[in-house]
């Protein structure tokens, strides 16, 4: 617990928690980053699942930078929000579930990227994705939308 107490007692922790604009500003950035991340990653996953077949599958690789920008915005804004009340957030089960879902979503995205966007896959360019790949895409949607839900519910749960 020593580290968490130190963290929320740093000037950054105090700034986010006590300034008039700190918490709402980073929450706003967190919402915008969420829309970028879920929007782009969600579309890639839906495409792998067979929706929007008029979008070239390999072309959706161009959405990855947007997903990364969204992820980075949220890693930074999320860390700052965490800093404002580190002991509370760390002890929240919903927060822990959210973190697990993000890790699972990240691993999932890495596996999906290797399967769908790797050069070998590009050369072969299989038209419909393999069933196992579709399962990865479907679980990715569950993990990321689950993370959104858990994130919102932190405020209402122990």
């Amino acid at each position, binding site marked *: 617990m020593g580290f968490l107490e130190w963290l929320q007692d740093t000037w950054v922790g105090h700034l986010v928690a006590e300034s008039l604009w700190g918490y*709402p500003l980073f929450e706003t950035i967190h919402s915008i980053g969420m829309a970028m991340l*879920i929007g782009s990653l969600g579309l890639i996953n839906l495409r792998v699942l067979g929706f929007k077949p008029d979008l070239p599958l390999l*072309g959706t690789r161009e959405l990855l930078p*947007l997903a990364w920008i969204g992820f980075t915005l949220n890693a930074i804004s999320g860390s700052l929000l965490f800093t404002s009340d580190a002991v509370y957030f760390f002890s929240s089960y919903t927060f822990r579930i959210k973190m697990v879902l993000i890790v699972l979503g990240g691993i999932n995205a890495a596996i999906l990227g290797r399967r769908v966007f790797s050069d070998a896959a590009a050369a072969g360019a299989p038209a419909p994705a393999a069933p196992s790949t579709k399962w990865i895409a479907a679980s990715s949607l569950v993990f990321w939308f689950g993370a959104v839900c858990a994130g919102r*519910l932190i405020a209402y749960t122990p």
Partner: protein
Amino acid sequence: MEFLVWLENTWIANAIRTIPWLYPTFETGHYIGLSLLVGGIMLIDLRVLGFGRSLPLKSMIGLLPFVWAGFLINVFTGSMLFIYGATGFGTNPAFLVKMTFMVIAGLNALAFDLAVRRSGGTWVVAGTPPTLVKGFATASLVFWLCVVTTGRWMAYI
């Protein structure tokens, strides 16, 4: 104000107050709708502005049903949240600014849609949107980000 008081005392508002988890559920739904609505619009606008050129413009404009789904989810969940706290939200300056931005963003989306229809599909298929349409796309990004920002700020004003 009388209307807001009445709204806050309807059976719907009372149900949201008494049934556990209803308010957080609507709030969570509002965030999922936000992801679909703003996520989808952002992708379309960025494509119009030239990002992701290997994705056909026509197909990206074809994402509009997802945007509409997100919009409808948020009109419903947002109305429920509003009814619950009508007197507070209805007089909240951030809420009024948010609604103003929504109307402007909506009119801007109509202008975009009109430009797509008027073109007869020529620049849509060719993937070469005219400057005016790029202007609509830029304005759309700005207005929707303002909607999200003012919406989030409602809790602090």
